[in-house]
């Protein structure tokens, strides 16, 4: 139970960090970390198929799409 509280706390910290970073690459890395912990929470709620889909989409696909979008625009937020 304490382990679930720890994971939710780390997920909240990563989400807040993703919203306040000025370097957008760092924000993408923090967002990848959020989806990574969401996969563990789905796993602990006894839904391994949802966790598998979340791992495949959140770790690989979302990061690549965000990086392609950042390459077309600017890296630093003013």
């Amino acid at each position, binding site marked *: 139970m304490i382990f679930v509280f720890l994971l939710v706390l*780390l997920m909240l910290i990563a989400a807040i960090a993703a919203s306040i970073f000025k370097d957008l690459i760092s924000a993408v890395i923090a967002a990848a970390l959020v989806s990574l912990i969401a996969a563990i929470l789905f*796993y602990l709620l006894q839904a391994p198929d949802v966790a598998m889909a979340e791992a495949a989409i959140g770790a690989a696909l979302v990061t690549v799409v965000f*990086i392609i979008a950042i390459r077309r625009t600017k890296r630093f937020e003013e």
Partner: protein
Amino acid sequence: MNGTLIIFLAIIGAGLILCFLRMLKGPTASDRAVAVDTVTTTIVALLVLLGFIFERYVYLDVSLVYSMISFVGLVALARFLERGI
């Protein structure tokens, strides 16, 4: 035996907190990428250990998919950093 596994889970959780501190503190984007790489490998081991605690054979598939596919995003990010802004 169950208490020993709880101790192992506590050690891995403490390691996750240390990696999160580096992710929050790191001066450049490369430090944060290294921290996320380490967290990914730690989480694969954690998922296998949790699957042993829950005693479900199907749960190992999640860990298998995760270890196969987790390097794609970091390689794309490294390609972006290598080419400059």
